[in-house]
């Protein structure tokens, strides 16, 4: 098939890959590049488990064709920690008990990051709205909202 060469930045690293036109971004990330932190929960853009950040905005990577990321900047959950040091959001999710099964966690943290990048001081209502595209069945969201509040304070220090 007619593969297309695309260039993009993933977690601050330059990539040049050939992809078939029908390949989804989530499959490129998980299957070809082996970064399985991005999860598939529904494949229909409803659950948010496959959330990644593309040029500062969150997208459901199961709804995006890989070829469209040409020239773009992508962040996945693997791109957040700096070596051994967790990102403040990762830290606050740990400390606040915001993780149970962990399947929604990568997407949840990335949506939180995009939210805080845009709005460094969100109210609890704004956090809930910002995370409304990410489903979690375990936590009831309460500790997740607290974790985002905590991280926002930490990041504003």
């Amino acid at each position, binding site marked *: 098939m007619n593969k297309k060469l695309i260039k993009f930045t993933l977690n601050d690293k330059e990539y040049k890959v050939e992809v078939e036109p029908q390949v989804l971004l989530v499959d490129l990330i998980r299957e070809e590049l082996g*970064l399985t932190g*991005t*999860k598939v929960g529904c494949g*229909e853009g409803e659950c948010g488990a496959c959330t990644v950040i593309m040029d500062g905005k969150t997208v459901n990577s199961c709804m995006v064709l890989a070829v469209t990321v040409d020239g773009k900047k992508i962040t996945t959950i*693997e791109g957040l920690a700096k070596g051994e040091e967790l990102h403040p959001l990762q830290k606050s999710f740990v400390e606040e008990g915001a*993780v149970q*099964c962990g399947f929604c*966690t990568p997407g949840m943290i990335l949506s939180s990051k995009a939210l805080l990048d845009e709005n460094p001081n969100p109210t609890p209502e704004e956090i809930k709205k910002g995370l409304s595209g990410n489903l979690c*069945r375990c936590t009831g969201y309460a500790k997740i909202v607290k974790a985002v509040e905590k991280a926002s304070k930490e990041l504003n220090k």
Partner: protein
Amino acid sequence: MSQLKVVGQNVKKKDVKEKVLGTAIFAADIKMDGMLYGKTLRSKVPHGIVKKINVSQALELPGVHAVLTEQDIPGVNKAGIIVKDEPVLVGIGQRIRKIGDPLAIVAAETEEIAEAALDLIEVEVEELPAVFSPLDAMKDDAPKLYEKGNIMAVRRIVKGDVAEAFKNCDVIVEQDYTTSMVEHAYIETEAGVAKMEGDVVNVWVCTQNPHYDRKDVAYNLNIGLNQARIIQTTTGGGFGGKLDVTVHVHVALLAKATKRPVKMVYSRRESISNTVKRHPFIMKYKTGCDKDGKLIAWQTEIIGDTGAYASYGPGTLTRAAVHATGPYEIPNVKVEAYTVYTNNPQAGAMRGFGVPQVAFAHESQMNLLAEKLGISPLEIRMKNAFIPGSITATGSKLEHSVGLKSTMESAKQAAEKVLGDKF
């Protein structure tokens, strides 16, 4: 006792770092050399006899490594937690009891090829009349799913004499309640990978009970329990829905047949459409008390639609029966709980096991009684709440750790503090 040092502390979860880093490995994340992908062909009709399954065209598709039917199962071809009534694959001459019953499984180089192979399998089914309402299914002239009839189990609890006791009640409320079928909706769908190592089949799978899974895998592959190794992968929620086997036996069969690792991941649609649900309940409640609000007589009938196979059905209905009268001491009780087969999707375990359904009913009843008596919902509960020494409807004495009055007090205080006189 000396002072506790670790128990009672907010210790961080042992696996939390991997989960926030995205490095925790769930079943769908596993990749092995030479790994094939499995898919399941399922019934489109709710009730019928399989007349023909022709897999020859599917087998010829390049990239297909195995297409298995019931004839390829070395063992019992049965699964099920309480009763072994579920076929692993429905074979020719055998009965389909619900839409989604598995008929054949395929292992291929890619998911796409496996999917395409499913379309090449020819199936003929002679449809049978089906029944979709548990009330209809209980009738004598209903289409029968099993020889012994559609009433899978009945659980009775009798304490005292309710008929006599209702005559002495000052207030009686009677009400029917129904609840919906509910999906677990864990964010991780069912997934697993199987691989042979010598004569041992390893199955990496999301599960709530690896030791039960081992039995179903071993008995269906006709191998020793020590030859089936189930390794739980990081599991993305369960809520009761990952107690039944789903991909487990299928990937094991395919791995054994192909001598290659085989992975199966259910799509969200496949997961919702084919795995167990919370039992929808139909409940009849009659509750009576004296003029002071003291409960005297309590009668409940529960009908639970367990769908085509039992799964945890009788366990759910038994637990519902035991808990049907709420945490209250009542001298006269009669409960009957029916587990009923229909050609609906299968119901099984879901967080609460039948108790959320009955709690909705018994707590509605308590409020109805309180209103008739002109007392508060809290007061009627306080009058009847279990305390140490109380005897339950099954005749067991609660000896210790009966904190119900404390939870009522605590909830009341917390609510009053925030809501003020609204509570």
